[in-house]
């Protein structure tokens, strides 16, 4: 069960991260085209900054679940390296629980904020892109991150129960 869930989530987070990177590549191309156009005929792309901001927000938030899945978020392992696997797994569960709370809080309170901005009709500064588009990746990324932390925590339970070998040694 957990294995299947993990498999699904791993591929989901990877595709979502690729989508985020697609936005980053788009930001790269738009910025370059803007520079080239402005050298050629003195007219860049109108509202480049609005577009780049949308793409960077997307790249950032869509990458965060992938960073959770690949355990790229930086942590300090001095103490847990010295713990018995069972206790290390316990502290890992606490860590993922806090991650879950924090990411869920971002999604939860962010949703309320996004809804309000959408009701007010807030738009981006130059192009007038509705701000709700900027919120979509934020909400998606934080909610998916919360889901990933549940899966990581679930992995630890057999270790806590059996005191078996931990995968922690592979992590950074």
């Amino acid at each position, binding site marked *: 069960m957990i294995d299947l869930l993990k498999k699904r989530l791993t591929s989901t987070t*990877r595709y979502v*991260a*690729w989508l*985020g*990177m697609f936005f*980053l*590549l788009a*930001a*790269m191309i738009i*910025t*370059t085209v*803007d*520079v080239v156009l402005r050298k050629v005929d003195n007219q860049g792309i109108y509202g480049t*900054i609005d577009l*780049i*901001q949308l*793409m*960077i*927000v997307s*790249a*950032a*938030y*869509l*990458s*965060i*679940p*992938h*960073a*959770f899945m*690949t355990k*790229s*978020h*930086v*942590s*300090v*392992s*001095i*103490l*847990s390296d010295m713990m018995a696997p069972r206790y*290390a797994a316990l*502290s*890992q569960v*606490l*860590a993922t629980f*806090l*991650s879950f*709370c*924090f990411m869920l*809080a*971002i999604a*939860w*309170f*962010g949703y*309320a*904020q996004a809804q309000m901005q959408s009701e007010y009709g807030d738009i981006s500064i130059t192009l007038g892109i509705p701000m709700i588009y*900027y*919120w979509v990746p*934020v909400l998606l990324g*934080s909610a998916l991150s919360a889901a990933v932390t549940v899966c990581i925590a679930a992995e630890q339970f057999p270790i806590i129960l059996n005191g078996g070998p931990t995968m922690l040694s592979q992590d*950074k």
Partner: protein
Amino acid sequence: MSSSLIGLLAFAALFGLIAIRVPIAIAMGVVGAVGGLAINGFDSVAFIMGSVPFESIFPYSLSVIPLFILMGVFSAKAGLSRALYDAAHAFIGHYKGGLAMATVGACAAFGAICGSSLATAATMCRVAMPEMRRRNYDDGLASATIAAGGTLGVLIPPSVIMVIYAILTEQSIGRLFAAALIPGLLATVLYMVAIKIKTARNPEQGPADERVNWPERIVAMINVWPVMVLFGVVIGGIYAGWFSPTEAAAIGAIGAFLLALFKRQLSFKTFLDCLDETASTTGMIFLILIGTAVFNYFVETTGLPQSLVASVGELGWDPYVILILLIVFYVVLGCFMDALSMILLTLPFIYPLITSLGFDPIWFGVIMVSVVEVGLITPPVGMNLFIIMAGTPGLKLQTISRGVISFLFADVARLALLILFPALSLWLPALLMD
């Protein structure tokens, strides 16, 4: 319970959570949110959690970070950085620690175009770390070199932090840039000296290779020309005013991508690997920015930094003793907070104090920027340390922290020189502008 007490408890909780392996970004975010709840109540925290995680990612100036990471990843995968380090190795590889010194030099050159420590560290990490590992450099030395070198992104003008300092204190930005130039070069030289001393005592950390003969050097130079062209366009373009640093990062990333394609180093699989790597690092850096922003919101509402600065001012001691106390205070605070927040939070209180003690505002600007940059490489919370850990599989905080000690000595030496000889900062602006 008073706000200051809650503040102190929160710092203890942050330490505790980090020690039991909670991701640092999450530890800061959770402590910030819970502490904020204790001081300001639910409505305030609900509002902050709804807005800060968005606004801390939103500024356009941040786009430079993932774009430079992308450039670094493409450069590494396409073997561009390898060619660069082969060339550096051909010329200085026979010196102990030669490649580490070359890395510091490259960081300085990068710092001269880019105003951000994070972007400098993230880019150089991709380029330099695998190459130094390949040449059997000690992980601690190699990673700490890049972490310290990354601070040159801010120490060498232009830099965002200097602009903020100048605006808050009503000083000339141009003057501050001029004042920071010699101290920035001094930092570069002292980092090289630190590497020299370290590798003289532990030669195995930065092993010297055999001297390379001139025909081989010329071959290495020929191999490196496409990279030189790319870096030349990126750096020269910013100097010439063709484009801004963010635009340079985009152009550099496209250039590295095209070079990789042209050298047939980029299969579809490698391309996806590049995206994976960029995504992991980007996600990690931005989550830290979010966590730090939430934590800073809380620290600020405790009023702790302000009251500490105020109580130092009331001591009425010798100006230099107070100055040193303040420096110690910033270094300690820098173990938990990011540089920009520290400046914004404390400068309104510290600046009147400093000027009333008779110190020169431009000179203090240089000191202050130097001191907050030290915070980027002091454990447990040092942004540059994290960035390098994210980009380097298997690197532990203990390892990089051990390596960073000699660079902290270099920082202390530089600060002492800057305090003892104000002319290091003030001579150039006087020469250029008076």
